């Protein structure tokens, strides 16, 4: 394990920022202005954390003032009242905040919607009340004086100028850390969670754990800023940490563009200087912040900084004249190569014990669905459904609309929990596992409506599928350790190989929205193959494709089967089903009404009346 760490990829911009920051105190003679810059750095630190949270969870916290305050007060109490040495006070404060943030995140981040905003807002109010009321510890409304200045051994930070260098260095380090983090496997996953959290979950990304971790990390940034603040001004009072500060930092985030790390810095610089310019109209501040927040959100919701950047980019000539060649020709070519016996460059499903499914003891197949039942209120969506899938086998699941086909796929991939029954893969019951664990067990899937990430390139979309194959966590991603970079390179190589198998190599860097529907579907299939699943769930893979295109897709499905994949195929196109299915299971009103080979099912009278239609004679 090497201790080498690396700067972010766009280190030039970072270096430039550092140079400017280094030059400012040389130009500024008046220490009052340095005070302004110091406050700016503290705000920027809180904003950085908040941005990370928004970028990854898509949720907003209105309680960061509380974490900022807790960092300040806890450290003040530990170092002043309890007389602990500063490093110990620092550790205690941050640990406490991490714990509190963790406890707050656990219930709220599990919920969909705006609960986090409300919970953090409520939390902020409670904390402000505690700061004001617990006078014996906090000094109450009149504040907490006499906090020691920052020092380590003989080094002491006693002037505005010293603190300037200290705080901005600290900020730049964390800024680089955050940039690294967002530009990594973990960062990709975080952005993916923001865009589509359920889909990300089925790709094996532990969304809930990542959200909680990000929240705690984000709170720690604020607490760190609070710690620095307390030991810089040496006096703190509850007013600094009330809800208005939370709104202020949120406004900085919004102005800079929610989730944009660089934008956040710009937003902080603008909005921290603004009140200074409007020094005389102090009563206007609240109204002004409100109007700015509202105005930016209404007219430029991506934030002012990204808006300016995109204006600049539009001024430049558009170099990407999307190579929209002849799609029909490309389809022809793909078909030809499929017919001429190409093979898929896949890591075959590891020959585990369960793959010996054709063996004599074959009580269970590779995937064994046993008596699965699920009701939504009065509706019995699935009623004791059970069948098996072996490797090298395509089991088609057909039935009229509303029969419960997609519901069953959702049960298998862990998005829904059945009331009864088991879903056994390789002898292991997966019921009750969260979707990302199911994916890790070896279940890949595609969706009825293609679920690709619009804000990502083709390659990045595919890389999300490789998430479970990597192991680098938040820390090594942020530090950009050599092992993390090696892993990233390896994943990229493998992703490019897989793209080549699907004839998508030359589109790797395109935004996914420029792909045709067929290419999007192929990409989605490739992504579900990335983590080498044993079983693939395909939900209407050829829906919306023309016959030629659907033939390409069928070609790939056949190839996958040959490679040992067990496949459940939900499909309405009977031509496709009859051609490639080894077995067919027919669902109606949540019950299996028939199963067998395509020929058997075709002749089953129940199926004919329920689904294929009664022939008038």
């Amino acid at each position, binding site marked *: 394990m090497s201790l080498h760490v690396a700067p972010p990829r766009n280190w030039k911009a970072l270096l430039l920022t550092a140079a400017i920051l280094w030059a400012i105190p040389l130009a500024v003679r008046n220490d009052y202005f340095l005070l302004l810059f110091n406050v700016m750095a503290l705000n920027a630190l809180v904003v950085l954390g908040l941005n990370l949270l928004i970028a990854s969870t898509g*949720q907003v916290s209105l309680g960061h003032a509380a974490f900022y305050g807790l960092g300040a007060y806890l450290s003040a109490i530990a170092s002043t009242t309890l007389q602990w040495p500063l490093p110990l006070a620092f550790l205690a404060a941050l640990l406490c905040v991490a714990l509190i943030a963790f406890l707050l995140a656990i219930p709220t981040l599990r919920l969909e919607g705006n609960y986090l905003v409300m919970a953090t807002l*409520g939390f902020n109010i409670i904390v402000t009340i505690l700061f004001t009321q617990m006078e014996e510890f906090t000094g109450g409304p009149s504040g907490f004086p006499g906090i020691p200045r920052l020092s380590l051994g003989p080094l002491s930070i006693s002037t505005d100028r010293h603190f300037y260098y200290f705080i901005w260095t600290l900020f730049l380090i964390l800024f680089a850390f955050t940039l690294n983090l967002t530009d990594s496997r973990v960062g990709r996953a975080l952005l993916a969670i923001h865009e589509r959290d359920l889909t990300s979950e089925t790709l094996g990304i532990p969304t809930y754990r990542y959200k909680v971790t990000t929240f705690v990390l984000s709170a720690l940034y604020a607490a760190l800023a609070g710690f620095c603040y307390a030991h810089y001004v040496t006096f703190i009072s509850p007013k600094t940490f009330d809800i208005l500060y939370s709104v202020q930092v949120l406004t900085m985030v919004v102005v800079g563009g929610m989730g944009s790390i660089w934008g956040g810095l710009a937003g902080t610089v603008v909005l921290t200087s603004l009140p200074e310019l409007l020094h005389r109209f102090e009563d206007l501040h609240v*109204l002004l912040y409100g109007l700015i927040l509202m105005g930016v959100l209404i007219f430029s919701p991506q934030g002012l900084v990204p808006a300016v950047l995109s204006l600049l980019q539009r001024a430049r000539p558009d170099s990407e004249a999307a190579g929209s060649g002849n799609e029909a020709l490309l389809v022809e070519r793909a078909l030809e190569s499929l017919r001429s016996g190409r093979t898929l460059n896949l890591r075959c499903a590891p020959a585990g014990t369960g793959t010996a499914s054709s063996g004599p003891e074959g009580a269970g197949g590779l995937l064994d669905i046993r008596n699965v039942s699920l009701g939504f209120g009065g509706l019995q969506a699935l009623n004791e459904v059970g069948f098996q899938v072996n490797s090298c086998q395509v089991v088609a699941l057909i039935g009229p609309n509303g029969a419960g086909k997609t519901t069953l796929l959702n049960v298998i991939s862990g998005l829904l929990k059945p009331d009864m029954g088991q879903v056994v893969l390789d002898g292991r019951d997966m019921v009750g596992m969260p979707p990302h664990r199911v994916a890790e067990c070896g279940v890949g899937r595609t969706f009825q409506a293609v679920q690709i990430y619009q804000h990502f390139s083709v390659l990045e979309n595919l890389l999300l599928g490789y998430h479970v194959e990597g192991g680098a966590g938040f820390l090594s991603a942020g530090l950009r350790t050599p092992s993390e970079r090696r892993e990233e390179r390896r994943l990229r190589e493998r992703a490019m190989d897989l793209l080549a198998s699907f004839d998508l190599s030359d589109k790797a860097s395109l935004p996914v929205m420029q792909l045709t529907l067929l290419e999007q579907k192929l990409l989605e299939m490739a992504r579900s193959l990335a983590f080498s699943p044993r079983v693939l769930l395909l939900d209407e893979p050829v829906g919306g494709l023309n016959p030629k295109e659907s033939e390409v897709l069928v070609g790939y499905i056949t190839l996958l089967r040959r490679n040992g994949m067990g496949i459940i195929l939900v499909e309405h196109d009977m031509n496709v089903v009859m051609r490639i299915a080894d077995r067919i299971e027919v669902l109606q009103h949540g019950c299996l009404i028939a199963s067998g080979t395509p020929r058997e099912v075709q002749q089953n009278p129940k199926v004919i009346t329920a689904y294929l239609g009664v022939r008038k004679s």
Partner: protein
Amino acid sequence: MMNWHLAPYFFVSGITNGSIYALIALGFCLIQNATGLVNFAQGEFVMLGAMMVFTFYHIIGLPMPVAFILAVAAVALIGVALERGPIRHSRNRDILTLVMITVGASISIRGASMMVWGKNAHIYPAFGGDSPVFILNAAVLPQSLWIMGLTLVVLVLLYLFFHRTLLGKAVRAVADNPHGAVLIGISVRRLVALAFGLSGAMGAMAGILITPITSMSYDAGLMLGLKGFAAGILGGSGSTLGAVVGGLLLGVLESFGAGLVSSAYKDAIAFLILLLILFVKPAGLFGSVRVRRL
């Protein structure tokens, strides 16, 4: 230090505050059902209602009933304006953006109110005088009776509106399935505006009614709004019945908590309950968890 002999008093004051929370929670509920948004400016409606009555009654000198009606109507209009203006014109329809626009609106209204009405708290006389009535050993202020009575009237009217009028049924239809409602010819936009207007009116009423007891200042809206929200979560997000029960329950819990533990932490109790509910039963007492689809 158990003041159990004061229990009837705590109960009455709990129900009084609870009625107010219920009104505010209903406002949240209306907008949430019509749009899926949590309207952060709800608390500002409460504050605005009271401040306007103060202006109409004290400054202009209108009689109280007129001031009351004018203030409710004015805040209802502000509610509609919030929807017609910022929310409708937002370029990004993302829920999070819209919710944050209401945060911005809330802060703006708060800032503007500070400039109009100043930083001091304002108060005006109670509706039925200040001499308490004795009911079951408890001294009850006439204002409490007014609050409970008017809240009850609002509830009955709302019930009739939702269940007996076509317009009310249309609002319920929109809450149930907005796309379906559009398809059968309901103008969702107008109903959304109506929801904002109604919730503005209810917020204003809550503020007007509570002010003779607690007084009102420009920054009190946030806290009242949040307590209404906590009440709504307690009862069950989006449930009308839940809003009422949650409001009353929260009022009583808060009153007993403050009386038996410490009044310094009175405001913290509501949020502890909020966090607790989110932890234990996020759907609330009367809510149901929605199934998400991809």
